[in-house]
């Protein structure tokens, strides 16, 4: 099994948090306020399905991911942790 580069993963998490705050226009929240394991939808950060559209666009534009792959990986939308790991894995593919 390939070893995870924790530094690279942390960079992806930071980038994702910053993009979420900026592109989703999250009010009164800074990137530092978002916990890595915080649930993104419903309870937790309280995002909704239209925010999911923006997240898909963020993943496409900033990390070059394909919407077809994302559709099959619903579990990655759980938290920043899961999103970042997914981006990391796809980069290594």
């Amino acid at each position, binding site marked *: 099994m390939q070893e995870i580069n924790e530094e690279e993963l942390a960079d992806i998490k930071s980038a994702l948090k910053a993009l979420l705050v900026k*592109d989703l226009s999250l009010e009164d929240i800074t990137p530092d306020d978002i916990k890595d394991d915080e649930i993104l939808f419903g309870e937790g950060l309280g995002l909704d399905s239209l925010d999911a*559209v923006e997240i898909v666009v963020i993943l496409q534009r900033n990390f070059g991911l394909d*919407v077809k792959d994302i559709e099959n990986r619903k579990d990655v939308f759980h938290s920043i942790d899961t999103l970042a790991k997914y981006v990391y894995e796809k980069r290594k593919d």
Partner: protein
Amino acid sequence: MGKKRGNRAGFWFFRTSLKLFGLSGAYALLYPVCLYYLIFDRHAVSTAMTYVKRRFRSYNIFRRICAVYKLFVSQGKNLIDRYYHVAGLGQFDVELRGYDRIKSLLSNSQKGFILLTAHVGNWQASMTALKKLNKTVYLLMTPEENAAVKNTLNIGNEKDKAKIISPEKFLGGILEILKVIDEGNIVSIMGDRSYGHNSARVSLLGGKANLPVGAFSIATALKCSVVVLLPAKVSSRKYIIDVSHVITPRCSSKSGKEEEIRALVQQFARILEEYAVQYPFQWFVFSDIWEGEGE
């Protein structure tokens, strides 16, 4: 029709009437049935009245009740036509307006588009007319609505070009919607009821109504077009299906996005308004989308 009125027994009754008495005979049976609902179904009358009050502001209460009755009859005719067509009892003339425009939309882009419709006319029949686009049309609708529509369109048959995306899926089916549009397909969304989800407050028929923003948020994100689909019954044997209104989001900045999406919803509201003026008894908006607004 509402869940209460669109039950299996009712469908069976009109299907049988169609076979026995033909289209005109089934239409004739509608009048007493709709009168029954006008007298006894207070909920249906009150929800229809929210639209009638705004569409016919100058009417007195008696004329408004007549308008509600006319609306019920008109919707009944649309339902009967649907079964008449599907059962293969006869054909309707269909004039498809704007076909070339949507055909060129598809040939000029790898992506599909959103087909934004409303509870107007016989929109399900439009799906049949759009088959010649040779694209799969995905209908965003709840399983409860599926039962009636599924039977009507024979959805589920592998050969068919219409499929269902349930909003009860993960994230409201949004991931599937994005994927199928990205693959060049068409997603049909109802644009006149928000069901408590994200909506924008826009001017409509002299009041402020809440219309859903979903279609335009998706179109803005995907940079795809929104084609407005408005079918209308113009005679006992003819439908006009209008797909000539194409709304293309042009979002320039993140900060102005919310306002831009609201403007697109307003654009759709104006198109709906024009439709309501032209075909006042074919918008079956049995819901108070003007909720919270005074008389």
